[in-house]
């Protein structure tokens, strides 16, 4: 009975994988992202970029699950980054203290330039 988040994964690069979201990041949406992220980590990807250009709305429960992914990434000395946030979602990430632990880029191009080194 919930509107489901759609995810597409681009794991063509060795180290870095991109997850693109489309829809609402609520509880289930966050869990779906985590599931995909852990699969990518298991496959050896140490850098993940979450492209939220298709996401116009989130809630703090969904984002709390993204914080779990950040924890996991810090454990394995990896990195989770975000791009293409709406101004409100970016503000929310700052309020939640997430921006200290994860880089935020304006778009995929800018993110890839910095991450793919």
């Amino acid at each position: 009975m919930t509107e489901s988040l759609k995810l597409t994964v681009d794991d063509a690069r060795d180290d870095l994988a991109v997850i693109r979201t489309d829809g609402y990041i609520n509880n289930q949406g966050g869990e779906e992202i985590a599931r995909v992220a852990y699969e990518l980590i298991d496959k050896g990807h140490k850098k993940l970029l979450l492209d939220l250009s298709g996401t116009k709305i989130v809630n703090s429960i969904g984002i709390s699950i993204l914080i779990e992914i950040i924890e996991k990434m810090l454990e394995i000395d990896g990195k989770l980054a975000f791009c293409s946030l709406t101004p409100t979602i970016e503000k929310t990430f700052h309020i939640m203290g997430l921006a200290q632990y994860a880089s935020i880029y304006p778009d995929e191009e800018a993110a890839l330039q910095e991450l793919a080194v």
Partner: protein
Amino acid sequence: MQDVTLTLPMLPDMELTASKTASAMGEHIRMSRDKIDEIQMAVVEATINAFEHSGSPDRKVRIHFHVLGTEGDPTGLQITVTDHGTGIPDGRLPMPGNDGRKSAPLPQKRGHGLRIINGLMDSVDIRSDEQGTTVVMTKLC
């Protein structure tokens, strides 16, 4: 006069109905897209708090949208989210200067909702007792 009320059942994703109504109201008074987005996010947080924490026996949340200013010259939107639950336990309200977390090596996972509402709206007033919780939040045009 320009008030809209919405009563929602506590069901998954019903907060999106509240946020869409908020968006329509913001468009109605020609607020900027960014301000409307902030209102939508704050309404989602206030609504899911009532869903998740209120324990309200009627399993309903009432949301009241009030246009500030006059019909010809609206100056803002005041949104009141009310539940008839058990109220916010003492010590759970975020205090100014106390952002609710210690200098931890990681951001805390939960407990951000009320701070998000405070951060995104221009003013927020929370009244809560054993009869329920009312969050009044205002955004100016």
